[in-house]
């Protein structure tokens, strides 16, 4: 699948939370093929910025647009995976993914094989380990039709094999014309990304 060219514009965005200025007049633009890593110390506002772009946190100051259109009209083009589990503990792996992605069983099962959860599709999420739960949430990337990926700490709790698999997937996604924003404290080796450093506001 090749995506239509897509552009994401962040202009003059500022954020204040609990009387603390997190970032000010932040502007950047991303288009098809870009990977951006949002970096910065704990509490610098990385998650807040990603949630703003995903439309989960209200933009107080500034404008964020996708293809010059407001965020709220283009929500279904965004895939956001935050650092909450993103899956229900009381449901099986496959039921969770079928709900979240809307795809039928064969496609979802293939995605589970791709993330190394072969044979776990009928397990309840609460029976999985932390890393397996994370793999289950990330399996959505393998059956996604959204061009814009926003991943908050996607590498948390993953083993080395899965980190490589995820890097390959992100590379394949941007090669198809998607774009990806993510945060991490350990910069991945096999990705070609730009870095946005937060936390320089005094």
């Amino acid at each position: 699948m090749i995506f239509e060219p897509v552009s994401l514009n962040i202009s003059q965005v500022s954020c204040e939370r609990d009387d603390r200025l997190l970032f000010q007049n932040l502007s950047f633009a991303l288009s098809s093929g870009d990977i951006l890593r949002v970096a910065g110390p704990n509490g610098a506002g990385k998650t807040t910025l990603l949630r703003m772009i995903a439309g989960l946190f209200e933009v107080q100051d500034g404008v964020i647009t996708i293809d010059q259109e407001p965020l709220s009209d283009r929500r279904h083009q965004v895939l956001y995976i935050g650092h909450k589990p993103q899956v229900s503990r009381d449901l099986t792996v496959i039921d969770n993914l079928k709900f979240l992605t809307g795809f039928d069983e064969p496609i979802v099962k293939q995605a589970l094989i791709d993330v190394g959860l072969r044979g776990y599709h009928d397990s309840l999420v609460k029976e999985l380990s932390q890393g397996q739960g994370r793999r289950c949430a990330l399996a959505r990337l393998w059956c996604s039709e959204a061009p814009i990926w926003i991943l908050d700490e996607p590498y948390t709790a993953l083993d080395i094999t899965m980190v490589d698999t995820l890097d390959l997937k992100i590379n394949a996604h941007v090669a198809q014309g998607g774009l990806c924003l993510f945060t991490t404290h350990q910069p991945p080796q096999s990705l070609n990304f730009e870095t946005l450093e937060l936390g320089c506001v005094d």
Partner: protein
Amino acid sequence: MSIEKRMLARELKLAAARPGDIFKPMWFLMLVISMVPLALSPDSALLADIGSAMIWVATLLALLLNTEHLFQSDFSDGVLEQWLFLDRPLAWLVGLKLIVHWLFHVVPLICITPIAGLMLSVPTDVLIALLMTLVVATPALTCFSGLGAALTLGSSRSGILGVLVMMPLFVPVVILAAGVLIRATDGSEILPLIALLGAFSLVAATLVPIAVSAAIRLNIGGSN
């Protein structure tokens, strides 16, 4: 599969995975009702007088008990914020969730009230009136307690707070239902009041999902 079908399939599976959420309020209702004759008096004339009102209040409390955490686990798992990315208005999805909740968690409560009625020797015509009021009033009660649950999502141990916030909205429903029960005991016409309760439920079912979706957005915006 359409988003609606996916929502329904998920809610059914969640209900099946958490049978305690369905049965606990039913136990609670039966327990309260079986305590009444012990605490008050086993005099069946007295019980028949107050029985229907007791059952009504106990059902209301049981309903509050199972609605106070309606959105809590979806919120803390981060699944609720994923609803915002589905290609449907949030209020519509919330409405679906409330309907499914009513079907699976409130209708079973209504179904066991005739047994409670027999235990308190409530006369048959009053019992029928009681069932009618519950069927038409519980959609409104479910909506209001769902709104309370959504408003207090962000704060932990919020159950009772949500109930307190919504108390003023429960009051008119309870007063109307009590009116129906008194009229049924007198043998006078109850249909006008039942219709009024039904209208209350319809208005609630139309407007409350919009308020719930606003409350959910507010809480998602304030969380990480």
